[in-house]
């Protein structure tokens, strides 16, 4: 079904025509999204808004469109596809990561707000997955034009990400976790997918701030040397 999450009318039209056919919606998987890449200082206003339009405002547009149906059914499940970047962040992925932190905020508060209507909400949080995400990544103009003041570190992060992604598990693993979530009687608060999606948030939680920063400094210096 054609649907542009950036467009309110497109979302409403598609949800309406779906309801005409099926009469109900049991599960919503908010998966549409893409990753902006670049230094925070160098994103233009328009670039920031474009990233939020899809990853945040788009997700809420679709959610808002299906909620009346789920409420009247007295049941429903919403699975927001977040990311490990909803818990941790790094140079270059700051903007993307902030949208995924927001997805976590939405999931956490929606979970509570929709309890009385028997609607369950969770976040699916993949780490690196071997998909065409790379093709859906948009570098900001400053970096793409080779004019970034942060070029060296960003190049290092990018190359590291691509190396990891080539060896990462495929999207079937995410599908498996989503299937598990749908079969859980009461969905958990979140479902990390992949070992990295568990590891990084874990060390951030359990290492003292200063030590975590030292680890990040080390990673940072390696990125700079590598590029």
């Amino acid at each position: 079904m054609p649907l542009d999450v950036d467009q309110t009318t497109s979302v409403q039209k598609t949800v309406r025509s779906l309801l005409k056919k099926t009469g109900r919606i049991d599960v919503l998987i908010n998966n549409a999204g893409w990753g902006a890449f670049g230094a925070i200082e160098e994103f233009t206003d328009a670039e920031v808004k474009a990233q939020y339009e899809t990853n945040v405002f788009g997700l809420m547009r679709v959610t808002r469109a299906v909620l009346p149906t789920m409420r009247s059914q007295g049941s429903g499940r919403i699975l927001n596809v977040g990311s490990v970047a909803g818990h941790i962040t790094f140079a270059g992925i700051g903007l993307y990561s902030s949208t995924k932190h927001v997805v976590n905020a939405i999931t956490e508060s929606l979970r509570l707000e929709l309890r009385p209507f028997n609607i369950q909400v969770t976040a699916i949080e993949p780490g690196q997955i071997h998909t065409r995400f790379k093709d859906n990544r948009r570098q900001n103009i400053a970096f793409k034009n080779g004019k970034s003041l942060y070029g060296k570190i960003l190049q290092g992060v990018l190359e590291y990400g691509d190396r990891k992604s080539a060896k990462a598990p495929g999207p079937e693993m995410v599908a498996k976790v989503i299937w598990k979530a749908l079969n859980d009687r009461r969905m958990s608060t979140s479902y990390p997918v992949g070992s990295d999606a568990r590891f990084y948030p874990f060390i951030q939680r359990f290492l003292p701030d200063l030590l975590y920063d030292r680890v990040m400094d080390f990673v940072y210096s390696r990125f700079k040397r590598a590029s």
Partner: protein
Amino acid sequence: MRELPIALITGANSGMGLACAEALAKKGWKVYGTYRSVKRAEPLRKLSKTLKVVPLRMDVDSASSVKKAVAQVYRKEKGIDFLMNNAGFVMAGFWEDVSDADLKAQFETNVFGLLRVAREILPIMRAQRSGKILNVGSVGGLVALPVLGPYSATKFAVRSLTDALRMEVKEFGVEVSELVPSEIQTAVVQNSRKGEKALSPDSPYTEFTKSYEAFAIERFKGAAPIQLLVKVVLKALSDQPMKRRYLVKFEDKALYFLKRFLPAGWIEAGIASQFPWCRWPRNGSN
């Protein structure tokens, strides 16, 4: 070298911004305090009569306004040593009651506005190879509460953007940190906005929204005095280097600690116990 260190505080015409402007000026800073509407700039003007506080018109929602205001400061002072990204407001309402336009307005100020100001000031600080940026987050950026979803969402974004920015600009000698207040004695509740459908008769959440309002007013009776926050800001300014984030109240520190070390489900159960209307229906299965 500039005569006095220069600070720029956004949204300085009331509450935390105003109190920090006053405190910094008393400590020997020259403070540019920004306000959006001329009608509400009076407290700043009053302060400027006795202290080195300069009221500066700036609407963080407008890129050109931010650019103009920062350029004005730079022309005069040739540098900025401290930026406190404080401008923000609360959009309250159940997610379904909050329209697309409401949500965008909330992000426009609290997140995009913060980025706009940082974007203009960072080149100045990078050139100096020094400077401190303190972004005002919230405990709502650590845990998301019902009815405060949109506000929490913006503060989750501030937390994460602060962390990434800190890592990115460190090598240029610029420090970035987050101030994390909770209830402080300000007019934040009175100044809060509500989602388009909040309290409308056809919203299924209206009863809940009402009981939340009562809850919020009750919570703010225990709000901490603003001077407690001012002390934390002054500490951040004297810390070399700044810490990653500054929490204000003891109970906020406890929450930060618990959020880190307890399973998410436990934290959720704790929050749910505060909001009795967030209960599962009696005979629901799904």
